């Protein structure tokens, strides 16, 4: 994420969370947190239980976030924000909790005279992780047409371009789905599993080889030792865990989309 993207991310984040911006430049943002946001990110549970028990006037914090690295060393007081900074990571975490499930309807567009019909889709964003003593991740954005079961990749990129609203607009109506969303979800899971199965998995064999080699070295250390010490079992366990291979499929977020645009 570049500096500008981070700046924009922060602005949007606080805007969506109803925290008012008090001061702003290209280099920084100062926001007044809401009580809810203060509780989420300021790590001061004792303060809040004190306020709530004592009837004290709540005073949620103001936060200044500096997003331009060239301003980090100047007199501008505030937290330095960059990719990898704990505060940004925390905002990511909150975003994750707040942006997991949506139900969106495409807008009919201006001057639309005739009634518009929307087709239901299930969209799900996946993250796949391969892990041994190294890791690799991949994102997939799948969408399934709930009328005919067609599956497309790159769903998120497609819907991003559309005008969507959280409720259905006037003069539009949507088709009830043919395929229940939960069943569609199971089918998308199968698709993901297929993707994984067809991938190149030499990394698994390589990790296995490293493991076998290290276990052999360990055993060699204790050859001829009559009473194997306790540490042997632990060393062995450590090596097994070190090279243990796992594949994880996680859902980042997903939702129901009612679209007039046909996606291919």
């Amino acid at each position, binding site marked *: 994420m570049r500096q500008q993207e981070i700046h924009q991310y922060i602005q949007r984040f606080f805007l969506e969370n109803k925290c008012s911006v008090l001061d702003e430049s290209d280099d920084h943002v100062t926001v007044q947190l809401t009580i809810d946001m203060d509780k989420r990110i300021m790590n001061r549970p004792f303060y809040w239980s004190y306020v709530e028990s004592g009837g004290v006037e709540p005073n949620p914090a103001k936060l200044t976030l500096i997003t331009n690295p060239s301003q980090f060393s100047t007199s501008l007081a505030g937290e330095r924000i960059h*990719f990898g900074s704990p505060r940004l990571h925390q905002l990511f975490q909150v975003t994750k909790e707040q942006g997991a499930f949506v139900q969106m309807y495409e807008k009919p567009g201006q001057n639309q005279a005739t009634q518009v019909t929307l087709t239901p889709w299930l969209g799900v964003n996946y993250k796949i992780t391969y892990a041994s003593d190294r890791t690799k991740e991949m994102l997939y954005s799948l969408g399934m047409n709930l009328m005919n079961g067609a599956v497309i990749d790159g769903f998120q990129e497609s819907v*991003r371009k559309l005008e969507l609203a959280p409720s259905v607009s006037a003069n539009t109506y949507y088709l009830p789905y043919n395929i229940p969303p939960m069943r569609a979800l199971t089918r998308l899971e199968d698709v993901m599993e297929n993707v994984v199965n067809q991938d190149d998995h030499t990394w698994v064999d390589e990790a296995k080889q490293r493991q076998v080699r290290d276990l052999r070295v360990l055993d060699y250390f204790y050859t001829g030792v009559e009473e194997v010490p306790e540490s042997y079992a632990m060393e062995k366990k450590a090596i097994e865990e070190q090279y243990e291979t796992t594949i994880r499929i996680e859902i980042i977020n997903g939702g129901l989309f009612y679209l007039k645009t046909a996606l291919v």
Partner: protein
Amino acid sequence: MRIERSTEWKEGFTERLENRKEWDNWTLYQMCYDMERAKVIPEFHGLQSPKHLPNLTPYAHQLEAAETVIERMNGKAILADEVGLGKTIEAGLVLKEYLIRGLVKKALILAPASLTNQWIAELNQKFHIPAMSYNKKYNLDHCPIVVTSIDMAKRSPHKEMIIQQEYDLVIIDEAHKLKNPKTKNYEFVQQLKKKFCLLLTATPIQNDVFELFNLISLLKPGHLGNLETFQSVFSASKHHVEEDEFLKELIQQVMVRNIRHETGIEWTNRLVQIMPLDFTDQERVVYSMISKLPVADSFTSLTLQREMCSSQLAAVLTLEKLHQATIQPEVRFQIEEILLKLTELDIHSKAKKALELIQKANDKVIIFTEYRATQAYLQAVLHAKGITSVLFNGKFSKNKREWMKQLFQGNAQVLIATESGSEGINLQFCHHVINYDLPWNPMKLEQRIGRVHRLGQTEDVHIYNLAVQQSVEDKMVELLERKIGVFEKVVGELDHILTDGKRSIS
């Protein structure tokens, strides 16, 4: 191949479908995806950590070291860079990489007590890693990154609490302290589960190859064979050069070692000289009397000789103790005679030499001595000549150390330190080091020099090794040379610590 999935999202989705909970906000939904896309790690290879640390500018050798540890050594390695090249940064990069990749959730850092705060500060400030100091009152389940000293960690009840945690990564600073497998420290580290492990030391061999064998056997038991086979091959004096080469290669599989002049960083010169000096006739007389003193063990005799090479005061203290413990009247008499002669001596030849060097340098100087008595003696000698000095030793508290350092930097011309003071203080503002007494272990010299000859040094550094001719110190020089030879054979090149090969000016 088993695939792990989480059902959490599915449950939340069902709740929304059944109108039991509200749907989320579209903008935040998109931001969430964008954020995941920015965070994705597309390759097994390469380092992610620099992307997360825009304010840290590691040197090329540090990045390379971190990558080598992870990709070639699979996360178990000895980081053996020369002093002052930033092993802490390398370890921080490795830890950060594993944290980002989710391979390490819990890490334990063991460092000398005097360095734990420095570790915590560096990890927090430079790496944004929330490391905290160990405290038995904390619930360790909630402290993912803990820093403590081995001396603390090896004792009950801390020991049990720590071992129970099963850390994913264990980092041990100043790991040469684990050279002896018969110590509690060694045993403790052996009991820790080490999925990933970094041992940091600039001096993996101090005296002999077995120390390195012991270190590697902690890290990767069996890598150098077991003790029996290792002993049979490498302890015999008759072993061959090919075996050294083979050993060197095995070591390189688990050890990263950067040396200064290969880092591509401009280094100031390190000018090392042995400064031979002679006793005065009177001193020579006392020295031979001391050498002939019939003491019970050769160790005491050796100590006395070394002390006499250092200062009258150092020798006096030991002699007085010896006097109290001695019963035979003739030996007591001999000691008394020596003590009397000692008081008649003028300023010690070596102190005189040191004084000369300090006056010639006309700059800040650090003097390292092995003896507390000599430390006091030197301060008195310097004071008499109007030269200001501060003392530094291992017994000082953290605050006092810092204060002494400030005093040295600001007001005093000379810092007189004992061995134990030489750990973890950085004195780049100084360019002259006098090794007033030689240690048995060449790596101690390296550690001492490393206090000033490190990143941030802007001028050439002058090292003076003082040695009294025709005394025990001659033999010490010889022994140090031999040990340096062993190190270079199996570990690799070593920067100048005893001489820089040029003819010394005497």
